[in-house]
């Protein structure tokens, strides 16, 4: 996709104050930042604060990331993770009600295809590490391996096995409730 080259140019433009370059970065990584915040269990409001803080920090750092132009997705995923954990910590410190809004909960609508509703519900019920991994992996456009590792605080080398194990767990649970994981198969 030539994505690396594009990102490099977008960062350079944004660092020079060009809003088109900046908007391009938001378009490319906005879902990654949001998905990371939601993967850590933040509510919509908390996720909005984590996302905005992440982007403000990038704006602050743009001129200082001279060597990191190609790694901006990793930087954003890592910062979104740290800010999400900070907000979770503040929530504990405030004794705030964590709320019952499950990040992966489904507000089913009449127009939702039944299968997608079920898929999303199964993701929400996965063990935490797999729910996080699949939530970040579901961002559009999808993160690359380095970005996924940064969002989850994994070593890059650990990612393929973690991904495979979580997909297997996901398929297993789908099968348990009688849904074929691979719609087009058989």
């Amino acid at each position, binding site marked *: 996709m030539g994505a690396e080259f594009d990102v490099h140019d977008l960062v350079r433009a944004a660092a020079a104050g060009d809003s088109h370059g900046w908007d391009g970065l*938001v378009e490319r990584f906005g879902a990654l*930042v949001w998905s990371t915040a939601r993967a850590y269990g933040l509510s919509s409001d908390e996720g909005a604060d984590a996302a905005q803080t992440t*982007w*403000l920090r990038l704006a602050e750092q743009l001129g200082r990331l001279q060597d990191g132009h190609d790694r901006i997705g990793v930087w954003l995923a890592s910062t979104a993770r740290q800010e999400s954990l900070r907000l979770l910590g503040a929530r504990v410190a405030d004794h705030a009600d964590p709320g019952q809004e499950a990040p992966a909960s489904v507000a089913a609508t009449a127009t939702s295809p039944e299968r997608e509703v079920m898929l999303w519900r199964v993701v929400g019920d996965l063990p935490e590490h797999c729910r996080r991994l699949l939530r970040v*992996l579901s961002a*559009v456009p999808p993160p690359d*391996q380095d970005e996924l590792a940064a969002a989850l605080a994994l070593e890059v080398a650990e990612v393929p096995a973690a991904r495979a194990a979580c997909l297997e767990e996901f398929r297993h649970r789908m099968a348990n409730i009688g849904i074929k994981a691979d719609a087009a198969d058989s």
Partner: protein
Amino acid sequence: MTSDPSEGFDVVDPADEQLLEELRRAASQFDPPPPAVLAAARSSLTWRTIDADLATLVFDSGVDRPVTAVRGGEGPRLMTFSSPSLNIEVEVANLGSHRQLVGQLIPPQVAEIDVHHATGTTSVQADQLGRFRAEQIGSGPVRLHCRFAATPSAQPVVTEWVPL
């Protein structure tokens, strides 16, 4: 499997890819980035500052204090920002939808401090002892921008953004 391990993610099982494509559709439908979040992200570039030293957040009691620590009621959140020339200690009191900041510049000095927050900028003064106070700060990301009129040669200091 005879795939080249160095290719990593690029070698994906078509069935995996199909499943992930379905998950992406579900994510886009059930939990996409809200338009207001993306709008706030786009407008963040206007807060870029070029001519200030960055004071990084080196301590945050909301995060750095062990969760298991015994808490004496609802004590304020304590934060310390640090730059080569200045430390800034801040106590944050949570007053519903607003925050109250009480701070201390180290070393103590007079300064003009702009508190940037979601609902605008609040300007306050640090006195000769380096003490300052800011009321009615909106919740959400906040930072402090410090200027030193008494020492014109001193570079302004701006803190990292932190959600309050």
